[in-house]
């Protein structure tokens, strides 16, 4: 049994939600009969932005509901997409006549459940559009980009989408900007020790002493290879190589950089990683506009991290730079 500071493992999702609501001091409210939260006062005529996915990635998703960020979040059980009725309840709470944009990671479970919800919403006269995030370059070749998983790059897309949804007043326009942010985002993760699912008490995968999984997914799904642990600099070189050549990012590009902690990795390690990422980007003449670093999109207590880049153009930069505020992310 993996040790955890919890009560009954079956209650973790419910109790997590209770704790989050209290920590938000009224800035988010619960949707009745659903494991979903929304902002208490959404301006009439605003396009709604709904994010969501499985629980277990805290503070993603509900930690990013706030001003100039998501309007609502719906969370499933640990590592399981939310069910359609939950998504529909959140959709209804968010719709103010302009429709709702669904924004989530590209997984079979999420895709199917959100699609069913979208069909149900349509029956109730609510228009929705969907952007699936597929930033993980390790999970499929570029030709099959829509087979790729969504990982920490979610953050960039939510940041831009939140600002766009606050400023633009048509679902189509919010969709366009959000899809562009998604298309301009690339990520890759690694892990050296597993997370675990509270209800089973078991690690999501096994990994040997001295081994590292390159391309690790957000739920412990395996990546591109299992290797001997290598020095941070060598690891970072390999990861950034794959990321840079994928979009591709080119000399003269301006990017935002996210180094995301999958759970148990130290900030010291992230900073050491950052050093090498910046050295490589500087050599490639890619200019880093801003850096986010921390535990945003986790996989329980998995030790590992991911690197994400968002390529900016004037429009994306404008939305990225806007102030925002939520439980897990504040920008002045």
């Amino acid at each position, binding site marked *: 049994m993996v040790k955890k500071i919890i009560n009954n493992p079956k209650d973790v999702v419910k109790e997590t939600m209770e704790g989050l609501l209290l920590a938000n001091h009224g800035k988010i409210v619960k949707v009745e009969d659903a494991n979903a939260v929304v902002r208490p006062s959404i301006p009439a005529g605003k396009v709604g932005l709904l994010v969501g996915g499985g629980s277990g990635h805290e503070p993603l998703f509900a930690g990013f509901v706030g001003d100039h960020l998501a309007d609502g979040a719906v969370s499933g059980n640990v590592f399981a997409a939310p069910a359609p009725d939950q998504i529909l309840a959140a959709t209804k709470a968010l719709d103010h006549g302009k429709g709702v944009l669904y924004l989530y990671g590209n997984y079979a479970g999420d895709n199917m*459940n959100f699609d069913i919800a979208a069909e149900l919403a349509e029956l109730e006269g609510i228009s929705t559009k969907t952007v699936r995030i597929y930033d993980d370059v390790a999970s499929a070749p570029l030709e099959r980009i829509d087979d790729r998983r969504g990982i920490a790059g979610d953050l960039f897309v939510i940041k831009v989408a939140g600002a766009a949804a606050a400023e633009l007043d048509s679902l189509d326009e919010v969709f366009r900007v959000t899809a562009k942010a998604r298309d301009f985002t690339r990520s890759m993760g690694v892990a050296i020790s597993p997370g675990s*699912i509270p209800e089973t008490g078991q690690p999501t995968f096994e990994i040997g002493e001295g081994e590292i999984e390159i391309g690790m997914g957000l739920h412990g799904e395996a990546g591109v290879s299992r290797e001997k642990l290598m020095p941070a600099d060598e690891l970072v070189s390999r990861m950034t190589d794959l990321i840079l050549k994928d979009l591709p990012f080119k000399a003269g590009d301006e990017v935002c950089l996210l180094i995301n902690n999958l759970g148990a990795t130290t900030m010291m390690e992230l900073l050491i990683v950052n050093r090498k990422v910046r050295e490589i980007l500087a050599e490639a003449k890619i200019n880093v506009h801003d850096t986010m670093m921390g535990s945003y999109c986790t996989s329980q207590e998995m030790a590992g991290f991911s690197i994400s880049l968002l390529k900016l153009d004037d429009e994306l930069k404008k939305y990225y730079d806007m102030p925002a505020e939520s439980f897990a992310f504040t920008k002045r």
Partner: protein
Amino acid sequence: MTIDSISLSQVKDAFHFIANRMVDSKDMLTQADQAIGDGDHGIGMARGFEAVNNMLEAKTLNNVEDVFFNTGTSLLASIGGASGAIFGSFFMGAGKALQGAEILNAAGYQKALEAGLAMVKKRGNASIGDKTMVDALEPAVDAANQYSGSSLEELAGLVAAASHEGMEKTKTFTAKIGKAKTLGERTLGHADPGAISITLIFEALKEYISSL
């Protein structure tokens, strides 16, 4: 003597029997998903079929369609994830095909399976060889279509056997869909968790009928 059909109350009993089997298989299914997925399939299925057990107690079910369809909606709402949508769609699709039937016979079972498969494919877009529950479901439907003259008991046996065989075959496939797909070659040798589940469901139904 072979059983040609079962009554509404037997169908309810059968679904309890199936649900208990799935709840009892929690650890085994979770381990199967640990090998090639994210290790939650067993807890999802157990949670889903606990909800089915509760629904069977709480809800007025007027016909066999109701039993199948409400099983589907219970799974859909309580599991979430890929399996909630897939297994939920399967039972909802199967239920609709039963159109208010008051008993379950071979013809009904066959129609239900066919419609269930269609719903699963519509929802998930998986084909044979993608290493999903479709690999166990589609051969079962094929078997049912081929042998449509048999009794319910015989058909249930054929369906369970075909599904089992299809499930075993998934060990030779590399995953192309779902959370296991990025594992590629490393999924070889492991059966797909969802394929195991659908086989368990068909086997439990067969056992229930044979025990009558």
